């Protein structure tokens, strides 16, 4: 974890207790298995629309999610499944939504790009690149005015840094000292193009320009992400808005079905070496938690997902009349 100049330099802390790391591993595994299951369902034509999987980025969602309290709010992106799961979304209603069913989180009207669960402060995935930041800024204003003591987090990709709304948001958050945390998932790609061909700036430089403390972390190391996130969330809660940059890896295509002709095999092997689950397994082993002891949890997760998928498949389709009635409150 490397920190920007505005934050007191702080050595990588002593690390997390095994119990906590294990829970984080479980959360990541849940996200991974959900994403894999979604990939299969999509390939089989069971999921309408398009879906963007977060495989390889699970440590960001799990680590930041672990640092948040239930009252905290989070706005997400098109690649938002992990964020929703980490915030604690109900898995049944999540799958129901992805399959476009009546009892889905969004009653089948939003799908993957709009998964939201306001009851747990999950303000929604978003189909518009960069659009989550203004919403999270507004949520932070609400926290500030209403003195909720909560923090608002915006997840966004590195490609989003080119969008003007992101800058307007960073400026406003800094200016008004909002309880706001911007979490960049820097996976090096914006769709089919490397982001270094899209951006002349670094987030480090931009954060410095806005006087926002910037923290850089290996986004595939869930322990590092969690520790960094705890720090920045606490700072943001105290009215010192923060930027957290997580270097991570988009293992799959931009969306499912993307043939990825634009990527090299070297990148694939480099990504494999950075698999967040493998990194966590290694760290757990060092703490004496062997791989075998993690098996029961994996089985549990798979069963949970299978049940959710079964329920989702059996779910009723939404009716047009109710949908039309939902346009206005």
């Amino acid at each position, binding site marked *: 974890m490397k920190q920007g100049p505005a934050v007191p330099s702080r050595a990588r802390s002593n690390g997390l207790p095994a119990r906590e790391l294990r829970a984080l591993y479980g959360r990541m595994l849940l996200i991974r298995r959900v994403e894999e299951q979604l990939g299969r369902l999509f390939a089989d034509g069971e999921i309408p629309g398009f879906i963007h999987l977060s495989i390889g980025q699970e440590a960001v969602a799990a680590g930041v999610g672990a640092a948040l309290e239930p009252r905290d709010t989070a706005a997400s992106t098109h690649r938002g499944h992990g964020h929703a799961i980490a915030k604690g979304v109900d898995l049944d209603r999540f799958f129901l939504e992805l399959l476009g069913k009546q009892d889905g989180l969004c009653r089948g*009207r939003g799908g993957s790009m*709009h998964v939201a669960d306001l009851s747990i402060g999950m303000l929604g995935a978003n189909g518009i690149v960069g659009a989550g930041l203004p919403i999270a800024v*507004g949520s932070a204003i609400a926290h500030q005015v209403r003195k909720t003591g909560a923090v608002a987090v915006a997840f966004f990709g590195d490609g989003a840094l080119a969008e003007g709304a992101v800058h307007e948001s960073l400026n406003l958050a800094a200016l008004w000292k909002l309880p706001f945390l911007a979490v960049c998932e820097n996976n090096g790609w914006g769709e089919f193009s490397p982001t270094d061909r899209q951006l002349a700036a670094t987030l480090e430089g931009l954060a410095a320009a806005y006087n926002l403390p910037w923290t850089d972390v290996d986004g595939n190391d869930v322990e590092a992400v969690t520790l960094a996130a705890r720090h920045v969330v606490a700072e943001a809660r105290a009215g010192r808005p923060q930027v957290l940059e997580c270097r991570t890896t988009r293992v799959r295509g931009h969306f499912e079905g993307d043939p990825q002709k634009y990527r090299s095999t070297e990148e694939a092997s480099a990504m494999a070496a950075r698999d967040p689950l493998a990194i966590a397994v290694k760290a757990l082993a060092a703490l004496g938690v062997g791989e075998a002891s993690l098996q029961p949890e994996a089985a549990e997760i798979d069963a949970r997902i299978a049940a959710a998928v079964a329920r989702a498949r059996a779910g009723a389709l939404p009716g047009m009349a109710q949908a039309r009635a939902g346009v206005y*409150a």
Partner: protein
Amino acid sequence: MAETRFARAINQALADAMAADASVILLGEDIAAPGGPFSVTRGLLDKFGADRVRDTPIAEAVIVGASVGAAMGGLKPVVEIMFMDFVTLAMDALVNQAAKARFMFGDQTTVPMVLRTPHGGGLNAGPQHSQCLEAWLAHVPGLKVVCPSNPADAYALLRAAIDDPNPVIFVENKALYAMKGELPDPPPSDRLGVARTARPGRDATIVSYGAAVHTALKAAEALARESVEAEVIDLRSLQPWDEAAVLASLARTHRLVVAHEAVEAFGVGAEIAARMADVGFDELDGPIVRVGAPFMPVPFGKTLEAEYVPSADAVAAAVRRTLA
């Protein structure tokens, strides 16, 4: 009863709403300390403090986008966009976020925000400071659009807009800010979507809203001197609009003119006319004539702008044409 200016009625509606509900906050460029470019928000910072009355940076996208997030977070933001021409910079927040959040999140949330913005010409403010773009927003499911024509309505409709759980665009014609009118005491309350008969008549119906209502009334006066009694309907709310009221008037007069300051082509009047050409077809005894601005940007020069803004003469001529 007190004689109050239009701008002042809006100010009072904001003050009363803020006093009644601590979740109402104001956001906008120069609205707090300076009291707003048209002095509409004057004094509110002193009354309610800097936490609730916020001068923002010049950054329309984020102030509207943040209003969506704040509205989903338990506040009722009222955000000002200094000229309606600048909503061009906030369309994603309005259209893709505010308008859709309730629907696309499956009724989980409401977005109780109001966006106030002035439209219209008359100040020679030129092509980028005069546009009437309400037709865009009326086309967007999930938004409501309101446009009052007088101080009492400005008060009542703004209170209703703030109380409404949905995002409401509140459009204020700049030429009306100085207009005086009675503001009843206690001030009026209302609900959105209800039109008002501004002048009764039996020979033709003129549907209008905002400042153009006064143009329509002037036309009706002129027509009355020719023994043509035109009924003037003030829509007040454009989305939803009061189809039943327009249809009822048409059923009496059998002639329809729609007048507004916005560009005629693809304007709000097109929807009114199209709808009446369907559900009101059997009532029509003459063509539906629209009066709106010509298909050109709002010109700067005095004489050009004066010719540009639809006149009472043009409205009267439209009525005569449908009666011919």
